[in-house]
């Protein structure tokens, strides 16, 4: 690991300013992703800003009946929150489907959203990777791609976003709140937080330098049945091959986001009005622009089948 200087941030504004001042500075929250990557020297910050002292660790009702989740609420606490379990069960389900008990005790709301891809070539510093080293090429394309993306991908990068939590938040229409280096606040719909790779896969979000996520707001509960179904290589403690996060209403409509297939939680609203017609019709719309590889073509069928299972469960 490269040497770095370390500070404990004392206010949101000071943290954002400190991060904006130094292009090599990074925030550290739970640390479970950034430290992993620093050990491999994939992340090489020269300065770490510890944001754990900032508070922002509560879950509160908003004035219009929604829920504001602090950036540093731990994944365990979010999953266990009574309101979340009752009114946003999809979110609890997605959280407990991810990582392990130990990791969820540390992982934060903000850190989870901003965790980086698990593409095996991204993790191997000996291989070219446009995300890790812009312009070096993509080893995954033409390589072993079973786990990689099928939609929203580009000729420069076919990596997926690995978060389960973000899939649930996308189906729930979450809004990410931030504070920038000059103190300005933004509310970013989660749909807009993650960028598609295009020819700049190293730029993963719309956040600007120094911009700190302070919380995530969920709109008031939508009702319906909440289901998170994750398909993976073993029954526990593995990233998704495909996951479906769904809120399904009694009339068969609902909102659906898919994980494991794209550089961001994948949702196409036009597919949702077709949900009553069944999984085949809806997944055809979701995957209309899919460009799978020989190794991950199975994900196209898996999306349809997992969605079919979710819709059957919702009909109950």
């Amino acid at each position: 690991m490269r040497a770095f200087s370390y500070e404990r941030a004392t206010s949101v504004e000071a943290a954002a300013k400190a991060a904006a001042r130094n292009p090599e500075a990074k925030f550290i929250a739970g640390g479970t992703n950034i430290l992993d990557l620093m050990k491999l020297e994939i992340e090489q910050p020269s300065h770490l800003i510890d944001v754990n002292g900032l508070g922002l660790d509560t879950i509160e009702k908003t004035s219009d009946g929604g829920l504001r989740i602090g950036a540093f609420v731990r994944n365990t606490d979010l999953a266990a929150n009574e309101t979340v379990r009752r009114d946003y069960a999809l979110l609890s389900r997605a959280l407990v489907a991810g990582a392990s008990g130990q990791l969820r005790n540390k992982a934060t709301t903000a850190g989870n959203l901003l965790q980086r891809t698990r593409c095996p070539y991204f993790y191997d510093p000996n291989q070219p990777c446009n995300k890790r080293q812009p312009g070096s090429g993509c080893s995954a394309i033409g390589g072993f791609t079973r786990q990689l993306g099928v939609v929203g991908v580009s000729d420069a990068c076919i990596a997926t976003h690995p978060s389960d939590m973000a899939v649930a938040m996308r189906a729930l229409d979450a809004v990410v709140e931030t504070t920038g280096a000059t103190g300005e606040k933004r509310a970013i719909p989660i749909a807009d937080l993650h960028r598609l790779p295009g020819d700049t896969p190293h730029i993963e979000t719309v956040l600007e330098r120094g911009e700190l996520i302070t919380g995530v707001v969920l709109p008031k509960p939508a009702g319906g049945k909440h289901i998170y179904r994750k398909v993976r290589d073993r029954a526990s403690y593995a990233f998704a091959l495909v996951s479906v996060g769904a809120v399904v209403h009694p009339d068969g409509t609902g909102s659906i986001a898919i994980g494991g297939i794209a550089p961001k939680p994948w949702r196409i609203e036009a597919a949702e009005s077709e949900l009553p017609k069944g999984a085949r019709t809806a997944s055809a719309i979701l995957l209309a622009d899919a460009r799978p590889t020989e190794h991950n073509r199975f994900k196209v069928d898996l999306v349809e089948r997992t969605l079919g299972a979710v819709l059957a469960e919702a009909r109950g």
Partner: protein
Amino acid sequence: MPTPFNLELSRRELLVSSAATVALAGAAGGARAADRGEESLNRSTEVSFEVNGEAKRLDLDNRTTLLDALREHLHLTGTKKGCDHGQCGACTVLVDGRRINSCLTLAVMHEGDKITTIEGLGQPGSLHPMQAAFVKYDGFQCGYCTPGQICSSVAVLEEIRADIPSHVTQDLNTPAAITSAEIRERMSGNICRCGAYSNILDAITEVAGVPA
């Protein structure tokens, strides 16, 4: 065909050259930061926390993980380094009562925390009930993952009692019961390469006081 003597030499050379690389990288890092006129060049930080009931004060290289602080600086070698990437659970310790992977957290981030390691749970002659149960049921073979398994087990039972749901909890609005399915799922972050899982489950089940 290299003789053992040559092998020895080349290993030493390798060690020497990698030490030199580390020194160089350190110097380059310092220069980089100095170029930017960064005010704080602190490469180390003071931190105070409690380990197994004893107050500790350390001045640590910022890079030191909690795991390395425990093992290399406090010589509490019960906590094990397995993968060092949060995947195997051998480094599990309790911080303020919650289990975490000590390899994926910096020691300097634990100012004021209360840390419990396997040594703090119990000692020969006064074993924690979970330690005693692992012995009774042979919940290990080589023993390398065992300190992490035991710390995790103790926390798992607390998590169920604290009404924290898991992936296998049927109904999110009723507290999870202590069942073998719940224990298995919650222990999935602790890998045992010898495959002592069924005995580990028996040990935890006995301490939980429920029929397996």
